């Protein structure tokens, strides 16, 4: 499977991308400095810490949470998180009775500005195949056992809408600051395959 691959890549692939890059630069189609900026942006500046700030603010501020559920794109932009693969956001609220789970069965659609680039498992055939068909079993693999009475809702993000889950706020966090709350929010909780951590 694709996810077994964690070395420096077959030399053919490394060589092929080098060749492609050099031709693109030579033809004036790509600026090498722009390539460096892209890598820095997605490797160092964008990631699930952004989404965690959104979730923590929603937990701490009911008016913000209402805006987030009403128009997620605008509410997320209030915190400065905008751009590619986050242009049309919808946030789904997990509650004591409803658990939302996000997948992209056809490729790897994912809300980049809030969650960064997706982990390999999210893009892998097993997750994409099974999340829609057996979401409870999939969650169990992630260590999440849903009680019988909780309804599971799967969202297949096949179009231009990008979905993010607002996890349930853990108990015993009433006195925590927004910053401390954000530290409890995991990437997996915002995909819907995990829960926020206990304080």
């Amino acid at each position, binding site marked *: 499977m694709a996810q077994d691959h964690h070395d420096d890549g077959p030399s053919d692939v490394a060589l092929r991308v080098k060749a492609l890059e050099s031709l693109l*630069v030579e033809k*004036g*189609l*790509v*600026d090498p*400095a*722009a390539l*460096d*900026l*892209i890598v820095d*942006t997605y490797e160092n500046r964008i990631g699930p810490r952004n989404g965690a700030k959104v979730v923590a603010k929603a937990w701490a501020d009911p008016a913000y949470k209402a805006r987030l559920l009403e128009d997620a794109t605008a509410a997320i932009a209030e915190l400065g998180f*905008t*751009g*590619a*693969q*986050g*242009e*049309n956001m*919808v946030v789904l609220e997990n509650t004591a009775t409803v658990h939302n789970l996000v997948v992209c*069965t*056809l490729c790897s659609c994912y809300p980049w*500005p809030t969650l960064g680039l997706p982990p390999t498992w999210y893009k892998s055939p097993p997750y994409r195949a099974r999340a*829609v*068909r*057996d*979401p*409870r079993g999939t969650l169990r693999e992630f260590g999440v056992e849903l009680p019988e009475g909780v*309804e*599971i*809702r*799967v*969202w*297949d*993000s*096949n*179009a*231009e*809408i990008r979905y993010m889950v607002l996890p349930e706020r853990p108990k015993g966090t009433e006195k925590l600051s927004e910053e401390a709350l954000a530290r409890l929010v995991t990437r997996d909780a915002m995909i819907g395959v995990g829960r926020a951590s206990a304080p």
Partner: protein
Amino acid sequence: MAALDPKAMGKLIATGATTRVDAPATKPKFKIGDRVAARNLSPVTHTRLPRYVRGKRGRVERVHGVFALPDTHAIGAGRSPQWVYAVTFDAAELWGPQGRGAGRLTIDLWDDYLDPA
């Protein structure tokens, strides 16, 4: 085409790009709560209508707006902008008896993928 410099690139990444049409000229065919059926289509080129929903019946849950149709946008045949809806299906409708306990599934579908049901 000139290569984008880092400043222009950074700006475009932070703005993003969407095929959403902000002031649609058409009205949506369906409203929230409408019963719909996903069409049974098998184009040999790109589509965002997966096999597992084809022919299945669900209900419109959200009306998202107007976006380019991937089927034509992927093959250089224009944007064909049309309405997109979040359509919710019961797991049992999708998977039969084996879908029991799998709750409901929502997927975004374009006008061309849907019929009234």
